[in-house]
């Protein structure tokens, strides 16, 4: 029982290193341990296990406000744009989210706005076939903004509940690609100002401290409304989300736990924090 353990510098160092090992980052780990020490000093007889304190602290950083697709009355179509760096799981997540909405009786349309990468459109088309969901696309090299716009227009015309738009992976330091994202968002926002519009950044749980740079640059390019953490079925625990939630105050909407349609779970900050610390 950690409550009974003597409080030596080594004790706190151990907690710090446990956090660092999950990609929480040295600054955040050190901050959390300082907060733990302060709290313990203020307690005459600490009733709480220090790890529980850390868990609760971590869980508290994640905003709990509901996403636009859960708002009542539901204005259609709710549009969700998926962005992120290369290979993190955007396309797969779009597929899983389509399945998620269909399972809840919502109609879905997908937008294949990655007009650049080899077989990117085909990948999303196959997801659409697998789930019996329409996919809006144009020829290779087409303007992604135009595809995004077409997708929302199609959703409006066909009275579809949700429009999910997939974009090409891009490293955050590529100015022209970030500008393209800014344009895609701006076009949809300008032409269709009244539709509920979310932009989710997809993050790979295996990611290290580069996550901070990703959020910084993506947030500058377009307003992010939430995060998705993928590949949590691996050994990485996505500790980077702690600093991201704390700094950017963005909710994590879902976590990816595999490659199949059902491998998408709503984010639970308590379970997430517990998995980080244990």
């Amino acid at each position, binding site marked *: 029982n950690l409550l009974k353990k003597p409080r030596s510098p080594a004790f706190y160092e151990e907690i710090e*290193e446990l956090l660092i090992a999950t990609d929480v980052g040295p600054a955040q780990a050190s901050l959390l341990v300082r907060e733990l020490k302060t709290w313990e000093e203020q307690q005459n007889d600490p009733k709480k296990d220090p790890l529980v304190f850390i868990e609760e602290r971590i869980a508290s950083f994640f905003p709990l406000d509901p996403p636009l697709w859960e708002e009542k009355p539901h204005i259609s179509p709710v549009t969700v744009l998926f962005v992120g*760096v290369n290979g993190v799981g955007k396309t797969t997540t779009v597929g899983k989210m389509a399945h998620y909405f269909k399972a809840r009786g919502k109609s879905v349309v997908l937008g294949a706005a990655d007009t650049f990468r080899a077989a990117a459109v085909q990948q999303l088309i196959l997801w659409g076939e697998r789930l019996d969901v329409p996919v809006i696309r144009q020829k290779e090299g087409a303007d992604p903004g135009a595809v995004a716009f077409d997708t929302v227009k199609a959703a409006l015309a066909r009275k579809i509940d949700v429009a999910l738009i997939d974009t090409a992976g891009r490293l955050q330091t590529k100015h022209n690609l970030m500008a393209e994202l800014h344009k895609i968002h701006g076009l949809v926002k300008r032409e269709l100002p009244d539709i509920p519009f979310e932009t989710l950044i997809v993050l790979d749980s295996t*990611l290290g401290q580069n996550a901070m740079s990703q959020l910084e640059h993506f947030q500058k390019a377009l307003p992010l409304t939430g995060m998705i953490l993928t590949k949590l079925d691996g050994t990485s625990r996505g500790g980077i989300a702690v600093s991201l939630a704390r700094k950017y105050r963005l909710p994590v909407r879902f976590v990816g736990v595999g490659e199949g349609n059902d491998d998408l779970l709503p984010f639970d900050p308590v379970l997430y924090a517990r998995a980080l610390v244990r």
Partner: protein
Amino acid sequence: SLTERFDRIFRKITGRGLVGEAQVDETLREMRVALLEADVNIDVVKTFVANIRGRLIGAEIGVGLTGGQTVLKEVFQEVVHILGDQRASLQLSPKPPTLIMMMGLQGSGKTTTAAKLAFHFRQANRRVLLVASDFVRLAAIEQLEVLGNQVGVPVLTPKEGVQRPQDMYQDVRRRWIEGMHEIVIIDTSGRLAIDQEMMEELKNLRDLYKPKEALLVLDAMTGQEAVNVASEFDRQIGVDGVIFTKLDGDARGGAILSIRSVLGKPIKFVGTGEKIDRLEPFYPDRIASRIIG
């Protein structure tokens, strides 16, 4: 910058010709944070700091250098040393074909890198064959076909009814004999090192093909788990070399130091972009400055 932070520590104790213990410990604390921020694994950082500490205490401050610069120079040289003082290249088989097998976590860049390697060897006038054996990811086969087309290299895709990568072996072998291919690059599905079934499949493929080079493809932005994942692939399959991808971003690449430090496997190439010509040799000194920041 790290030099400025180190210099500030040394300015507190002036007029010394030798690097003192207190200064060393303080600079090593800064070094530790910098390496962790760069995603170097915590255990690797601890070993690194312990090893370099002895070397630094009592070290003479270099001519024309500040105390901080002396420490930084020592750290830099040690990182370069770990990363590998000479560039590793892909080993060709004495008797063709040279079989290269790509492996790694989901999304790390295997398929794109397979195409880049094909392009690299085609530029060197080698007869190359690409093998598409990812049966899991949607449109994976098509992705390699499109890339193969861009590179001008034939891509062998699964025959009708073939459902497992192992069942392609006979076909691949027949094809490389008929085509007299010197280099055969086999692309595989992304997989978790803890996925027993998928690691079993990879073992089967390794036993069938007996590749000259089983290459682990890792994303340069991978965090603390990089070395654990790599160790598991090495333990179960055997890693002949590593390729780090997406180095055209601003990821510090600490995973590179972790893997060199723990596994000691050669880094054969680095990926520096999405286009097929964006495969570069691994330069230890460039990566060292990037990691140290």
